[in-house]
């Protein structure tokens, strides 16, 4: 684990915020997993549990008006960027009042007021959008920064490779955060990355690039802080390759994870749970108390309970919504 003096120095409030973010994501995902199994939630849902430290660490150094573009596995990014969890839950249920009015669903959750430019159903499809948001900030002369999240599998997409080039040539204030969770669906990174780190691809085009322990929220936060500072000060793009495996399968209801050994998952959950690792550490060095953590736990649980309750009882969108938000010529 990294030295986390900076985080501790930032004080209890920040630590609690980071914990709240990670706990909220975990609780949200665990609960969606249960509700999905109960067949209450329609559609395709990809859970982020296990990777919380990445979203939480990166977004902890962003302001409200910075931008992120996310992936099909986007709940964690949305929560970390400050999206309302009730609005998110309503969206997952396809209900009126959802963040996208029920039109988007899990794979298209977005909240432009929070700088969350959207989950994305296409691998690496959102990466160029983040580059564009960075261009926008640069042309408008603000100091906003954009972050593109993508997966190890998405890192093989041409759109990502091209975005690296564009970002370095245009010196855009963008940070590429590749989350290597070991798999693209059922295909392992040891196959599809041919044993190489994605960070090398950033370096190859001249982008400062680092591999980061994605279970360690402090490590992520530190790396992200440097990257964001570089971007804000006109230093151009950075690539962070954060490694942390997912707890659940690729997609709810889709796979039984037969492509993973059970021992792999057990070991992951017992020794690489980023939320536990955080808790152990702040308790060990007494920067937070067990009571503080429990208070967060309880509050988060209540918030998610309420979100599910509201989502279940919410109205379906009105049929007239079918033809709004688009130019329909007939």
């Amino acid at each position: 684990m990294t030295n986390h003096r900076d985080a501790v120095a930032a004080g209890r409030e920040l630590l609690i915020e980071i914990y709240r973010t990670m706990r909220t994501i975990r609780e949200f995902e665990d609960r969606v997993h249960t509700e999905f199994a109960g067949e209450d939630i329609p559609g395709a849902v990809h859970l982020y549990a296990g990777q919380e430290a990445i979203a939480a660490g990166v977004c902890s150094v962003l302001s409200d008006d910075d931008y992120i573009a996310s992936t099909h596995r986007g709940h964690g990014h949305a929560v970390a960027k400050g999206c309302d969890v009730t609005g998110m839950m309503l969206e997952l249920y396809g209900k009126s009042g959802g963040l996208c009015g029920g039109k988007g669903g899990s794979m298209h959750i977005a909240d432009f007021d929070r700088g969350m430019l959207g989950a994305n159903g296409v691998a690496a499809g959102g990466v160029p959008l983040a580059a564009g948001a960075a261009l926008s900030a640069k042309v408008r002369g603000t100091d906003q920064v954009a972050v593109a999240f993508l997966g190890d599998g998405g890192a093989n997409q041409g759109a990502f490779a091209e975005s690296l080039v564009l970002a370095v040539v245009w010196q855009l204030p963008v940070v590429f955060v590749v989350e290597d969770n070991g798999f693209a669906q059922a295909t392992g990174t040891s196959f599809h990355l041919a044993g190489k780190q994605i960070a090398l691809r950033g370096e190859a085009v001249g982008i400062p690039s680092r591999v980061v322990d994605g279970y360690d929220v402090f490590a992520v936060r530190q790396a992200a802080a440097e990257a964001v500072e570089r971007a804000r000060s006109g230093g151009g793009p950075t690539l962070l390759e954060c490694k942390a495996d997912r707890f659940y399968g690729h997609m709810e209801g889709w796979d039984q994870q037969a492509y993973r050994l059970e021992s792999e998952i057990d070991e992951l959950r017992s020794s690489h749970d980023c939320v536990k690792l955080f808790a152990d550490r702040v308790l060990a060095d007494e920067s937070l108390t067990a009571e503080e953590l429990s208070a967060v736990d309880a509050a988060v649980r209540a918030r998610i309970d309420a979100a599910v309750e509201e989502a279940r009882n919410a109205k379906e969108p009105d049929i007239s919504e079918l033809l709004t938000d688009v130019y329909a010529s007939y």
Partner: protein
Amino acid sequence: MARVLSYLDAIGEALTQEMRRDPAVVVFGEDNIGGTGTNGKLGNAWGPTKGLHQEFPDQIFDAPITEAAFVGAAVGAAATGLRPVADLLFVDFAGVCFDQILNQAAKLRYMVGGKASVPLVLRAMWGTGMRRGAQHSQALYPIFAHIPGLKVVVPASPADAKGLMITAIRDQDPVIFFEHKMLYFSHGVVPEEPYEIPFGKARIVREGGDCTIVAIGRMVAEAETAAEQLAADGVSCEIIDPRTVSPLDEETIYASVRRTGHLVVVDESNPRCSAASDIGSLVAQNVFDALRGPVRMVTSPHAPTPFSPALEDAYAPSAARISEAVQAVLRRAVAA
């Protein structure tokens, strides 16, 4: 005894029989085997390729998420002696490799004056109904039908899925093979031995004399439901499933319209420049005199597919909307 198979298994059987027949038939895509590069079990494919790697370890492989590269590789492989079947997963992902389809696969044979051909099959899952949202529910076959050089196959039944896949693999041109996600677990009688269903030959799903309904893919079943209801009201519909949108069996459609005098086209795609508009305009150009009233197109609206089940259920054409269209067309003819 007639054997019943799912649409999904019918496609799997076609792939199996063709790989067995011809070692030049190779199959690849993301998770076409599944599990490559993991410590767990191999064979976590989804869809019709599940399990095939055991019999064909040298003919089936997993690909990284590199559609532009592997679809392009299918083109290059097809032009140099293989018969690749590449898997796009969702047809929506054609976006990331569209150049290789539009400018390479479709045009190569023509551009080189016939000195090469591109016998590849691109499998693509399509359609609404699974609550997958705007980027995983499109039809898009009108876009491919627009492009000269491609053949576009949209099977509506398990038996057709098998026979059309075999034809697709043996065809010398690039074929986009549309598999409707909501039909995968539909069942039907499927002959065991390999057989071809020719491209450009429509299937008359139901005979009738009052109105011709041309329906595509999942819409065939909706049209059948509508026709049942209409029959109860004394209206007799003829249902035609074109099976392949390009080439299109114009003659079967024209012959039917000559008999019925009325045409309703049911197409799950968006309306503009669609298969519905294509067929509607061909009839209005070539069998105008037979028409006893306006043609009618029943499609999804000019909007992306919404996620919410409540909205999605109102999006694609339904039996009810098809009935209405037929009734409107006939009512108008009576009134006139």
